Protein backbone atom coordinates (compact mmCIF):
# COMPACT_ATOMS: atom_id res chain seq x y z
CA UNK A 1 0.00 0.00 0.00
CA UNK A 2 1.02 3.55 -0.47
CA UNK A 3 4.05 3.56 -2.70
CA UNK A 4 6.20 6.35 -1.30
CA UNK A 5 9.71 6.99 -2.54
CA UNK A 6 12.40 9.31 -1.18
CA UNK A 7 13.11 12.05 -3.73
CA UNK A 8 15.12 15.24 -3.46
CA UNK A 9 13.48 18.65 -3.66
CA UNK A 10 15.48 20.72 -6.14
CA UNK A 11 13.38 23.77 -6.95
CA UNK A 12 10.33 25.67 -5.75
CA UNK A 13 8.25 26.38 -8.85
CA UNK A 14 5.20 28.08 -7.39
CA UNK A 15 5.40 29.39 -3.85
CA UNK A 16 1.71 30.38 -3.67
CA UNK A 17 0.52 26.89 -4.57
CA UNK A 18 3.43 25.17 -2.75
CA UNK A 19 4.66 23.42 -5.89
CA UNK A 20 8.19 22.10 -6.17
CA UNK A 21 10.21 19.91 -8.50
CA UNK A 22 11.62 16.72 -7.03
CA UNK A 23 14.25 14.49 -8.57
CA UNK A 24 15.26 10.85 -8.33
CA UNK A 25 17.87 9.28 -10.59
CA UNK A 26 17.49 12.05 -13.16
CA UNK A 27 13.69 11.72 -13.22
CA UNK A 28 11.84 14.88 -12.31
CA UNK A 29 8.28 15.81 -11.49
CA UNK A 30 6.45 18.76 -10.06
CA UNK A 31 4.80 17.80 -6.79
CA UNK A 32 2.79 19.54 -4.11
CA UNK A 33 4.78 20.26 -0.94
CA UNK A 34 2.05 21.97 1.08
CA UNK A 35 2.12 19.15 3.64
CA UNK A 36 5.76 19.88 4.49
CA UNK A 37 5.65 23.57 5.25
CA UNK A 38 4.72 23.11 8.91
CA UNK A 39 8.02 21.24 9.30
CA UNK A 40 10.19 23.61 7.27
CA UNK A 41 9.51 26.89 5.48
CA UNK A 42 9.34 26.67 1.71
CA UNK A 43 12.74 28.25 1.01
CA UNK A 44 14.49 25.76 3.28
CA UNK A 45 13.00 22.74 1.52
CA UNK A 46 15.45 22.84 -1.37
CA UNK A 47 17.98 20.02 -1.04
CA UNK A 48 15.79 18.14 1.42
CA UNK A 49 14.61 14.60 0.74
CA UNK A 50 10.89 13.90 0.97
CA UNK A 51 8.63 10.88 0.58
CA UNK A 52 6.45 11.43 -2.48
CA UNK A 53 3.15 9.61 -2.85
CA UNK A 54 0.75 10.24 -5.74
CA UNK A 55 2.22 13.64 -6.55
CA UNK A 56 2.26 14.92 -2.97
CA UNK A 57 5.21 15.09 -0.59
CA UNK A 58 3.84 13.54 2.59
CA UNK A 59 6.88 13.84 4.87
CA UNK A 60 10.53 14.79 5.03
CA UNK A 61 13.22 12.14 5.32
CA UNK A 62 15.51 12.75 8.27
CA UNK A 63 18.95 11.73 7.02
CA UNK A 64 20.45 11.59 10.51
CA UNK A 65 17.75 9.14 11.56
CA UNK A 66 18.46 7.07 8.43
CA UNK A 67 22.15 6.92 9.40
CA UNK A 68 21.23 5.94 12.91
CA UNK A 69 19.05 3.06 11.72
CA UNK A 70 21.91 1.80 9.56
CA UNK A 71 24.37 2.26 12.44
CA UNK A 72 22.25 0.04 14.70
CA UNK A 73 22.52 -2.79 12.21
CA UNK A 74 26.27 -2.17 11.76
CA UNK A 75 26.63 -2.59 15.52
CA UNK A 76 24.90 -5.96 15.28
CA UNK A 77 27.30 -6.91 12.51
CA UNK A 78 30.29 -5.94 14.62
CA UNK A 79 29.02 -7.84 17.64
CA UNK A 80 28.84 -11.07 15.65
CA UNK A 81 31.57 -13.59 16.41
CA UNK A 82 33.99 -13.71 13.49
CA UNK A 83 33.25 -16.70 11.34
Amino acid at each position, binding site marked *: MCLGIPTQIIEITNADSALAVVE*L*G*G*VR*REVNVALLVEELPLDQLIGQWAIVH*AGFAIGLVDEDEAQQTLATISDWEREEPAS
Partner: protein
Amino acid sequence: MASELSKETLTSAKQNEKKKDLITLAHGSGGAAMAGLINNILKPIFNNSWLNEGEDQARINMADLLADLAPSDQNRLAITTDSYVINPIEFPGGDIGKLAACGTLNDLAVGGAIPRFLSVSFILEEGLPVERLAKMAHSIQQVAEQEGVAVVTGDTKVVPRGAADGLFVNTTGVGIIPSQRSLGCRYIQPGDALIVNGQVGNHGAAIADVRDGLGFTSILKSDCASLNNLIQSVLHQFSSVRCIRDATRGGVAAVANEFAQVSECDLELWEAELPLHDSVKAICELLGFDPLHLANEGNALWVVDSSEKDAVLAQLLSHPLGRNARIIGEAKAAKSKPRVTAKNALGTSRIIDLPVGELLPRIC
Protein backbone atom coordinates in the same frame (compact mmCIF):
# COMPACT_ATOMS: atom_id res chain seq x y z
CA MET B 1 -11.36 48.42 -47.43
CA ALA B 2 -9.13 47.29 -50.22
CA SER B 3 -6.34 46.46 -47.87
CA GLU B 4 -8.72 44.49 -45.67
CA LEU B 5 -9.87 42.53 -48.67
CA SER B 6 -6.36 41.68 -49.70
CA LYS B 7 -5.61 40.65 -46.14
CA GLU B 8 -8.56 38.27 -46.29
CA THR B 9 -7.46 36.89 -49.62
CA LEU B 10 -4.00 36.43 -48.27
CA THR B 11 -5.24 34.56 -45.21
CA SER B 12 -7.42 32.24 -47.24
CA ALA B 13 -4.58 31.59 -49.66
CA LYS B 14 -2.35 30.76 -46.74
CA GLN B 15 -5.00 28.46 -45.34
CA ASN B 16 -5.28 26.77 -48.70
CA GLU B 17 -1.58 26.29 -48.84
CA LYS B 18 -1.61 24.90 -45.35
CA LYS B 19 -4.45 22.60 -46.32
CA LYS B 20 -2.36 21.32 -49.19
CA ASP B 21 0.23 20.31 -46.67
CA LEU B 22 -2.14 18.08 -44.79
CA ILE B 23 -3.06 14.53 -45.68
CA THR B 24 -6.63 14.41 -46.93
CA LEU B 25 -8.84 11.52 -47.93
CA ALA B 26 -7.95 12.45 -51.53
CA HIS B 27 -4.41 11.22 -50.88
CA GLY B 28 -5.80 7.76 -50.47
CA SER B 29 -8.27 7.80 -53.33
CA GLY B 30 -6.00 6.54 -56.07
CA GLY B 31 -6.13 9.80 -57.98
CA ALA B 32 -3.74 12.61 -58.70
CA ALA B 33 -3.27 13.56 -55.04
CA MET B 34 -2.10 10.06 -54.23
CA ALA B 35 0.20 9.90 -57.23
CA GLY B 36 1.66 13.24 -56.17
CA LEU B 37 2.27 12.03 -52.65
CA ILE B 38 4.00 8.89 -53.84
CA ASN B 39 5.97 10.39 -56.72
CA ASN B 40 6.91 13.72 -55.14
CA ILE B 41 7.37 12.80 -51.52
CA LEU B 42 7.91 9.10 -50.88
CA LYS B 43 9.72 7.82 -53.99
CA PRO B 44 12.46 10.47 -53.87
CA ILE B 45 13.12 9.55 -50.25
CA PHE B 46 13.40 5.79 -50.76
CA ASN B 47 14.84 6.18 -54.27
CA ASN B 48 16.20 2.92 -55.72
CA SER B 49 15.99 1.10 -59.03
CA TRP B 50 13.58 -1.60 -57.86
CA LEU B 51 11.11 0.94 -56.50
CA ASN B 52 11.53 3.27 -59.43
CA GLU B 53 10.42 0.61 -61.89
CA GLY B 54 6.95 1.58 -60.75
CA GLU B 55 5.41 -1.88 -61.00
CA ASP B 56 2.95 -3.31 -58.52
CA GLN B 57 5.63 -5.56 -57.12
CA ALA B 58 9.35 -5.26 -56.64
CA ARG B 59 11.22 -7.59 -59.00
CA ILE B 60 14.45 -8.83 -57.52
CA ASN B 61 17.13 -10.88 -59.20
CA MET B 62 18.28 -13.89 -57.22
CA ALA B 63 21.81 -12.55 -57.53
CA ASP B 64 20.74 -9.30 -55.81
CA LEU B 65 19.15 -11.30 -53.04
CA LEU B 66 22.31 -13.31 -52.43
CA ALA B 67 24.65 -10.34 -52.94
CA ASP B 68 28.10 -11.48 -51.82
CA LEU B 69 26.92 -14.83 -50.45
CA ALA B 70 28.03 -17.93 -52.34
CA PRO B 71 24.97 -19.63 -53.81
CA SER B 72 24.02 -22.72 -51.79
CA ASP B 73 20.86 -24.74 -51.38
CA GLN B 74 21.32 -24.32 -47.67
CA ASN B 75 20.86 -20.54 -47.75
CA ARG B 76 17.39 -19.68 -46.56
CA LEU B 77 15.09 -16.78 -47.21
CA ALA B 78 13.89 -14.99 -44.05
CA ILE B 79 10.69 -12.93 -44.08
CA THR B 80 9.24 -11.02 -41.19
CA THR B 81 6.53 -8.40 -40.81
CA ASP B 82 5.49 -6.07 -38.04
CA SER B 83 3.10 -3.17 -37.57
CA TYR B 84 4.06 -0.16 -35.53
CA VAL B 85 1.66 1.98 -33.54
CA ILE B 86 3.12 4.26 -30.93
CA ASN B 87 1.99 7.32 -29.08
CA PRO B 88 3.68 9.76 -29.29
CA ILE B 89 4.95 9.31 -32.87
CA GLU B 90 8.15 11.12 -31.95
CA PHE B 91 9.72 10.23 -28.65
CA PRO B 92 13.09 10.79 -26.95
CA GLY B 93 15.58 8.68 -28.88
CA GLY B 94 13.51 7.99 -31.96
CA ASP B 95 10.27 8.12 -33.88
CA ILE B 96 7.83 5.67 -35.42
CA GLY B 97 9.85 5.60 -38.67
CA LYS B 98 13.10 4.65 -37.00
CA LEU B 99 11.20 2.16 -34.85
CA ALA B 100 9.52 0.55 -37.87
CA ALA B 101 12.79 0.13 -39.72
CA CYS B 102 14.89 -1.00 -36.75
CA GLY B 103 12.21 -3.31 -35.38
CA THR B 104 11.83 -5.30 -38.58
CA LEU B 105 15.57 -5.35 -39.34
CA ASN B 106 16.15 -6.60 -35.79
CA ASP B 107 13.57 -9.35 -36.29
CA LEU B 108 15.55 -10.51 -39.32
CA ALA B 109 18.97 -10.16 -37.74
CA VAL B 110 18.15 -11.99 -34.49
CA GLY B 111 17.37 -15.07 -36.59
CA GLY B 112 20.80 -14.89 -38.19
CA ALA B 113 19.52 -13.33 -41.40
CA ILE B 114 21.37 -10.67 -43.34
CA PRO B 115 18.64 -8.10 -44.14
CA ARG B 116 18.29 -7.16 -47.82
CA PHE B 117 14.96 -5.49 -48.55
CA LEU B 118 12.12 -3.71 -46.80
CA SER B 119 8.55 -2.91 -47.74
CA VAL B 120 6.79 -0.01 -46.04
CA SER B 121 3.05 0.58 -45.67
CA PHE B 122 1.63 3.69 -44.13
CA ILE B 123 -1.86 4.07 -42.73
CA LEU B 124 -2.35 7.80 -42.45
CA GLU B 125 -4.92 9.71 -40.47
CA GLU B 126 -6.63 12.48 -42.39
CA GLY B 127 -5.15 15.79 -41.26
CA LEU B 128 -1.60 14.51 -40.72
CA PRO B 129 0.90 17.11 -41.94
CA VAL B 130 2.60 15.79 -45.09
CA GLU B 131 5.83 17.10 -43.66
CA ARG B 132 5.43 14.72 -40.75
CA LEU B 133 4.97 11.77 -43.09
CA ALA B 134 8.08 12.81 -45.01
CA LYS B 135 10.03 13.06 -41.78
CA MET B 136 9.03 9.52 -40.78
CA ALA B 137 9.89 8.23 -44.27
CA HIS B 138 13.29 9.88 -43.95
CA SER B 139 13.80 8.15 -40.61
CA ILE B 140 13.08 4.80 -42.25
CA GLN B 141 15.41 5.53 -45.15
CA GLN B 142 18.19 6.66 -42.84
CA VAL B 143 18.18 3.29 -41.06
CA ALA B 144 17.83 1.40 -44.36
CA GLU B 145 20.79 3.22 -45.84
CA GLN B 146 22.94 2.65 -42.79
CA GLU B 147 22.18 -1.08 -42.94
CA GLY B 148 22.57 -1.40 -46.73
CA VAL B 149 18.92 -2.27 -47.24
CA ALA B 150 16.54 -0.92 -49.90
CA VAL B 151 12.87 -0.04 -49.45
CA VAL B 152 11.60 -1.63 -52.63
CA THR B 153 7.84 -1.50 -52.37
CA GLY B 154 5.16 0.14 -50.29
CA ASP B 155 1.64 1.36 -49.88
CA THR B 156 -0.28 4.27 -48.40
CA LYS B 157 -3.85 4.33 -47.17
CA VAL B 158 -5.71 7.25 -45.64
CA VAL B 159 -8.41 6.81 -43.02
CA PRO B 160 -10.81 9.50 -41.75
CA ARG B 161 -9.78 11.64 -38.81
CA GLY B 162 -10.12 9.65 -35.59
CA ALA B 163 -9.81 6.27 -37.29
CA ALA B 164 -6.06 6.15 -36.68
CA ASP B 165 -3.64 7.93 -34.39
CA GLY B 166 -1.54 10.09 -36.75
CA LEU B 167 0.10 7.33 -38.66
CA PHE B 168 0.61 3.61 -38.40
CA VAL B 169 3.45 1.86 -40.18
CA ASN B 170 3.85 -1.71 -41.33
CA THR B 171 7.19 -2.94 -42.56
CA THR B 172 8.09 -6.31 -44.01
CA GLY B 173 11.70 -7.38 -44.16
CA VAL B 174 13.37 -9.90 -46.42
CA GLY B 175 16.82 -11.31 -45.76
CA ILE B 176 19.03 -14.31 -46.29
CA ILE B 177 20.18 -16.70 -43.61
CA PRO B 178 23.57 -18.01 -44.72
CA SER B 179 23.81 -21.78 -44.88
CA GLN B 180 26.12 -22.21 -41.90
CA ARG B 181 23.87 -20.33 -39.46
CA SER B 182 21.23 -22.05 -37.37
CA LEU B 183 19.80 -20.11 -34.45
CA GLY B 184 16.76 -21.08 -32.43
CA CYS B 185 15.54 -21.24 -28.85
CA ARG B 186 15.16 -25.02 -29.16
CA TYR B 187 18.97 -25.21 -29.08
CA ILE B 188 19.23 -23.75 -25.56
CA GLN B 189 21.10 -26.11 -23.21
CA PRO B 190 21.48 -26.13 -19.43
CA GLY B 191 24.60 -24.15 -18.57
CA ASP B 192 24.21 -21.65 -21.41
CA ALA B 193 24.84 -18.02 -20.54
CA LEU B 194 22.16 -15.32 -20.89
CA ILE B 195 23.47 -12.00 -22.12
CA VAL B 196 21.86 -8.63 -22.83
CA ASN B 197 23.67 -6.22 -25.11
CA GLY B 198 22.37 -3.07 -23.46
CA GLN B 199 20.63 -1.42 -20.54
CA VAL B 200 17.30 -2.99 -19.71
CA GLY B 201 13.99 -1.14 -20.05
CA ASN B 202 15.12 2.21 -21.48
CA HIS B 203 12.49 2.32 -24.23
CA GLY B 204 9.58 1.38 -21.97
CA ALA B 205 10.61 3.84 -19.29
CA ALA B 206 11.26 6.67 -21.76
CA ILE B 207 7.83 6.15 -23.32
CA ALA B 208 6.09 5.92 -19.92
CA ASP B 209 7.79 9.22 -19.16
CA VAL B 210 6.22 11.12 -22.03
CA ARG B 211 3.01 9.18 -22.68
CA ASP B 212 -0.26 9.42 -20.78
CA GLY B 213 0.58 12.82 -19.31
CA LEU B 214 1.92 11.32 -16.11
CA GLY B 215 4.00 14.46 -15.70
CA PHE B 216 7.49 13.00 -15.39
CA THR B 217 10.51 14.24 -17.29
CA SER B 218 13.89 12.64 -17.55
CA ILE B 219 17.03 12.50 -19.63
CA LEU B 220 16.09 8.97 -20.62
CA LYS B 221 16.08 8.04 -24.30
CA SER B 222 14.59 5.05 -26.04
CA ASP B 223 17.28 2.54 -26.97
CA CYS B 224 15.67 2.23 -30.45
CA ALA B 225 18.45 1.01 -32.74
CA SER B 226 19.18 -1.47 -35.50
CA LEU B 227 21.12 -4.35 -33.99
CA ASN B 228 21.98 -5.73 -37.41
CA ASN B 229 25.61 -4.65 -37.48
CA LEU B 230 26.22 -5.78 -33.89
CA ILE B 231 24.63 -9.17 -34.51
CA GLN B 232 26.52 -9.75 -37.77
CA SER B 233 29.79 -8.87 -36.05
CA VAL B 234 29.19 -11.58 -33.44
CA LEU B 235 27.73 -14.26 -35.73
CA HIS B 236 30.61 -13.71 -38.14
CA GLN B 237 33.06 -14.86 -35.48
CA PHE B 238 31.19 -17.20 -33.17
CA SER B 239 29.13 -20.30 -33.82
CA SER B 240 28.28 -20.75 -30.14
CA VAL B 241 25.31 -18.35 -30.13
CA ARG B 242 22.21 -20.51 -29.62
CA CYS B 243 19.63 -17.81 -30.18
CA ILE B 244 18.96 -14.10 -29.97
CA ARG B 245 15.65 -12.29 -29.53
CA ASP B 246 15.05 -8.58 -29.18
CA ALA B 247 13.26 -7.89 -25.90
CA THR B 248 10.49 -5.63 -27.17
CA ARG B 249 6.95 -5.70 -25.73
CA GLY B 250 6.84 -7.57 -22.44
CA GLY B 251 10.55 -6.92 -22.01
CA VAL B 252 13.24 -9.37 -20.99
CA ALA B 253 10.61 -11.21 -18.92
CA ALA B 254 8.54 -12.10 -22.00
CA VAL B 255 11.53 -13.27 -24.09
CA ALA B 256 12.93 -15.31 -21.21
CA ASN B 257 9.55 -16.99 -20.76
CA GLU B 258 9.35 -17.79 -24.49
CA PHE B 259 12.86 -19.26 -24.35
CA ALA B 260 12.03 -21.35 -21.26
CA GLN B 261 8.86 -22.69 -22.80
CA VAL B 262 10.42 -23.80 -26.09
CA SER B 263 13.73 -25.07 -24.73
CA GLU B 264 12.18 -26.69 -21.65
CA CYS B 265 15.03 -25.23 -19.59
CA ASP B 266 14.70 -23.07 -16.49
CA LEU B 267 16.16 -19.63 -17.00
CA GLU B 268 17.71 -17.96 -14.00
CA LEU B 269 18.25 -14.20 -14.18
CA TRP B 270 20.60 -12.45 -11.79
CA GLU B 271 18.92 -9.26 -10.69
CA ALA B 272 22.07 -7.62 -9.39
CA GLU B 273 23.70 -8.05 -12.81
CA LEU B 274 20.98 -6.29 -14.82
CA PRO B 275 22.45 -3.18 -16.48
CA LEU B 276 19.98 -0.48 -15.47
CA HIS B 277 20.02 3.25 -16.13
CA ASP B 278 19.48 5.23 -12.91
CA SER B 279 16.40 6.84 -14.43
CA VAL B 280 14.88 3.45 -15.24
CA LYS B 281 15.45 2.40 -11.64
CA ALA B 282 13.81 5.63 -10.50
CA ILE B 283 10.81 5.30 -12.83
CA CYS B 284 10.32 1.74 -11.62
CA GLU B 285 10.41 2.82 -7.99
CA LEU B 286 8.09 5.77 -8.56
CA LEU B 287 5.48 4.00 -10.68
CA GLY B 288 5.83 0.47 -9.37
CA PHE B 289 7.14 -1.14 -12.57
CA ASP B 290 9.47 -4.12 -12.91
CA PRO B 291 12.35 -3.29 -15.31
CA LEU B 292 12.14 -6.85 -16.64
CA HIS B 293 8.67 -6.01 -17.97
CA LEU B 294 9.69 -2.79 -19.74
CA ALA B 295 10.07 -2.80 -23.52
CA ASN B 296 13.43 -2.49 -25.28
CA GLU B 297 13.95 -1.54 -28.93
CA GLY B 298 17.69 -1.95 -29.27
CA ASN B 299 18.42 -4.63 -26.74
CA ALA B 300 18.24 -8.37 -27.17
CA LEU B 301 18.53 -11.41 -24.97
CA TRP B 302 21.33 -13.66 -26.25
CA VAL B 303 21.84 -17.27 -25.26
CA VAL B 304 25.42 -18.42 -25.70
CA ASP B 305 27.25 -21.69 -25.05
CA SER B 306 29.06 -21.08 -21.77
CA SER B 307 32.42 -22.05 -23.27
CA GLU B 308 32.42 -18.90 -25.40
CA LYS B 309 30.38 -16.55 -23.23
CA ASP B 310 33.32 -14.36 -22.26
CA ALA B 311 34.56 -14.05 -25.82
CA VAL B 312 31.08 -13.15 -27.08
CA LEU B 313 30.69 -10.66 -24.26
CA ALA B 314 34.02 -9.06 -25.15
CA GLN B 315 32.95 -8.75 -28.78
CA LEU B 316 29.64 -7.14 -27.73
CA LEU B 317 31.43 -4.72 -25.42
CA SER B 318 33.64 -3.56 -28.27
CA HIS B 319 30.61 -2.39 -30.30
CA PRO B 320 28.83 0.92 -29.57
CA LEU B 321 25.46 -0.87 -29.22
CA GLY B 322 26.95 -3.43 -26.84
CA ARG B 323 29.00 -1.29 -24.52
CA ASN B 324 26.62 -1.99 -21.61
CA ALA B 325 26.42 -5.72 -22.39
CA ARG B 326 26.36 -8.02 -19.42
CA ILE B 327 25.94 -11.70 -18.60
CA ILE B 328 22.66 -11.64 -16.66
CA GLY B 329 21.93 -15.28 -15.96
CA GLU B 330 22.06 -18.84 -17.11
CA ALA B 331 19.91 -21.70 -18.37
CA LYS B 332 19.43 -24.63 -16.05
CA ALA B 333 17.89 -28.05 -16.32
CA ALA B 334 14.20 -27.71 -15.44
CA LYS B 335 13.09 -29.75 -12.44
CA SER B 336 9.43 -29.60 -13.37
CA LYS B 337 7.54 -27.12 -15.54
CA PRO B 338 10.19 -24.81 -17.07
CA ARG B 339 10.15 -21.34 -15.59
CA VAL B 340 11.99 -18.08 -15.33
CA THR B 341 13.29 -16.94 -11.98
CA ALA B 342 15.20 -13.91 -10.80
CA LYS B 343 17.81 -14.37 -8.13
CA ASN B 344 18.52 -11.25 -6.09
CA ALA B 345 21.61 -10.05 -4.25
CA LEU B 346 20.36 -11.81 -1.11
CA GLY B 347 20.46 -15.13 -2.92
CA THR B 348 16.69 -15.65 -2.86
CA SER B 349 14.60 -16.08 -5.99
CA ARG B 350 11.24 -15.03 -7.32
CA ILE B 351 9.31 -16.17 -10.33
CA ILE B 352 9.29 -13.87 -13.34
CA ASP B 353 5.93 -14.13 -15.06
CA LEU B 354 4.73 -12.46 -18.20
CA PRO B 355 3.33 -9.02 -17.45
CA VAL B 356 -0.44 -9.09 -16.87
CA GLY B 357 -1.86 -6.83 -19.59
CA GLU B 358 -0.72 -3.24 -20.03
CA LEU B 359 1.72 -1.74 -17.55
CA LEU B 360 -0.22 0.56 -15.25
CA PRO B 361 1.43 3.03 -12.92
CA ARG B 362 0.42 2.34 -9.36
CA ILE B 363 0.30 4.30 -6.14
CA CYS B 364 -0.02 1.33 -3.86
